[in-house]
């Protein structure tokens, strides 16, 4: 069975997965159409595989923000693979291309998906970190809503005491999702708010505590130290927590996302990524580069502006979304 058929089968086998993949398909409409149209264009234009073909392929991938280094490695592997399998026809290579991409996305440790560390009983703590304007507070709002729908008792902590209006913004999300928000005044010590949040979560018997933090650029050493302190407070108060440190990344971001992932990991030991605004951007390739270079998995994706537009990241569904045009043509 060919690789594409397997993927296709996986996603048409049950009604539930079809729904998920449809969501990915609509959210990734722009991503998919531009990326795979280009890939198809490319394959159509070249009958033979030559240097020029690989150069153009490189461009297609770079334009998807995959990153120069990752692309160069990938091209090199493809060239080797083409030689090894004696592929001369461009159309035949198409499958190898997507196979390689899936490999990076999904097959890092032979596990297709990175599970989210949710405690079956007792308190689960998620810490959200990231640079300014990526959508941390919005993501927390969406997640609070979804967890609440699942019957969990959720509490939010307004750890962004710096940005004007941030506490109010989280409070509005709290109202929408009908969950409580622990907050201090603007300008107070974020570690202290988080501490209070933990105490409140413990005494109220909360299932999931979602901690917001102020956006900060990763090259501000003192702000990164502040973040480490927040994490230490959580660690000290609850053994094993935070259960997830989620780096929120804007999908529009270019190569700087790598630097963000690296530095935030050093400060807070990031366990997963939330890729936001994937509905708006035409790209999403930076995920590939981060996965390849830093081994950090994507755990959630933001696919729209509605409360429900936060999905668990499913690498297969993601790749299916990217390549579904090509799959359907087969």
């Amino acid at each position, binding site marked *: 069975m060919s690789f594409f058929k397997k993927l296709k089968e996986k996603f048409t086998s049950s009604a539930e997965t079809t729904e998920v993949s449809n969501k990915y398909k609509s959210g990734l409409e722009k991503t998919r159409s531009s990326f795979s149209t280009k890939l198809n264009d490319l394959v159509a234009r070249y009958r033979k595989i030559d240097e020029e073909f690989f150069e153009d392929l490189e461009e297609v991938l770079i334009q998807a923000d995959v990153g120069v280094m990752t692309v160069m490695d990938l091209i090199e592997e493809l060239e080797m693979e083409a030689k090894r399998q004696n592929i001369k026809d461009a159309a035949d290579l198409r499958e190898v291309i997507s196979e390689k991409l899936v490999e990076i996305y999904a097959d890092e440790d032979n596990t297709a998906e990175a599970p989210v560390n949710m405690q079956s009983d007792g308190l689960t703590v998620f810490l959200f970190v990231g*640079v300014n*304007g990526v959508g941390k507070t919005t993501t927390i709002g969406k997640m609070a809503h979804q967890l609440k729908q699942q019957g969990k008792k959720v509490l939010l902590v307004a750890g962004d005491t710096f940005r004007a*209006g941030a506490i109010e913004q989280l409070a*509005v999300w709290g109202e929408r999702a009908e969950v409580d928000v622990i907050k201090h005044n*603007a300008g107070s010590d974020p570690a202290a708010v988080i501490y209070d949040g933990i105490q409140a979560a413990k005494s109220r018997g909360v299932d999931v505590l979602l901690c917001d933090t102020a956006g900060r650029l990763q090259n501000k050493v003192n702000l990164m130290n502040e973040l480490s302190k927040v994490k230490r407070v959580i660690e000290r108060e609850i053994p094993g927590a935070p259960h997830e440190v989620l780096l929120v990344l804007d999908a529009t971001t270019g190569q700087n996302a790598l630097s963000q992932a690296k530095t935030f990991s050093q400060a807070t030991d990031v366990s997963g990524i939330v890729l936001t*605004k994937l509905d708006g951007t035409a790209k999403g390739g930076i995920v590939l580069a981060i996965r390849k270079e830093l081994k950090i998995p994507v755990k959630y994706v933001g696919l729209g502006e509605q409360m429900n537009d936060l999905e668990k990241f499913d690498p297969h569904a993601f790749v299916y979304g990217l390549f579904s045009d090509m799959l359907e043509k087969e």
Partner: protein
Amino acid sequence: MAFEGLAERLQNTIKKMTGKGKVSEQDVKEMAREVRLALLEADVNFKVVKDFIKKIKERAVGQEVMNSLTPGQQIIKIVKEELTDLMGGEQSKIAVSERPPTVIMMVGLQGAGKTTTTGKLANLLRKKHNRKPLLVAADVYRPAAINQLETIGKQLNLPVFSKGTDANPVDIANDAIAHAKEEHYDYVLIDTAGRLHTDENLMTELREIKENVDPAEILLVVDSMTGQDAVNVAESFDEQLAVSGVILTKLDNDNRGGAALSIRAVTQKPIKYAGMGEKLDELEVFHPERMASRILGMGDVLSLIEKAQENVDEKKAKELEEKMRSATFTFDDFLDQMEQVKSMGPLEDLLGMIPGANKMKGLKNAQIDEKQLVYVEAIIHSMTKKEREDPSIMNASRKKRIAKGAGRPVSEVNRLLKQFEEMKKMMKQMSGMQKGKKGKKKKGLNLPFM
């Protein structure tokens, strides 16, 4: 990290070429490849890069290089020239309407930094241009966006016009203009909601606001970390609204900001300001030629020198020079000097502006701990006046007292004293050497503790 590797490789290639007396076509090809990689890694759009490299290659193999005495340097010059050219050489000013108020619309994607930038721009208009600005909260969609602008308004002591979240943004804009005319405001800054360039409903809303208020400027706010997509965003906003300029935000990050180049090349619209920090006075006029250096990773000497000039008190610098020469430099002077350097901004930023600093051993990944400076200050502050003027009277019990006062170990006090003595010695030598060429010394750049 991949990126540092590239900047280094580019610098190595440049270094190799700088020394060469003759440049072969192969050399040019190699150079072009490195420049291409550097630009792509800086997030410059690949189409823009393609055109750029073609131009460089044409000029580099042409007469002007081959006949030059230093072909290596000549090529670097070409790269910088072309890059600066692409960035749009001149600085661009903000518009003023003949009949006030001048209306400015702020537009962009979600999270680009529109609200903060609106506040910063109003602050700059008031401070540097002596104008009276009115802030208008027209983002009725994002939770607490109005609250955010109002808080910023309060911090800056500037008025904010708002009608709550139930009002229509077009009505808000109209009413704000009417209010501004009555109250004789010079500028009206409309903060609009972040939106996707592909969101037709919201883009129509922006067009309606535009038709109603007839803005003198429509400024597109763009996150400098944006990747290849920057071109699509800018093109789309420009097509639908005819943007008049761009403000680049979050440029105080370690990104290269290639998006700036892409946007400029594709839309031909000038980048007017750059956001350089979270504080509300950290909006700077954009210097295209400096951005060119930054994108290539060549450092930013101009900015550094200007920063020094802006912040270093000339009279104090003169006095200091005098003191150095006569070797009467005391701990008080040392404190003074530290203050001046600190006012130039974070040390790390300063380091980043020195070309080649990322190549220097030890400085490469140096994370300068600003706390160390605070400790040094604390130690000096714990000294008596006499001790500061004449450290030679220092003895064990004095040191112990100082250490206790500063809350630092005695060893740190000892280290500081030793460094201070060495510095004085060095100054003596330096001033001896300088006697011949007075006034040539770069003021403000003597950073004894760096």
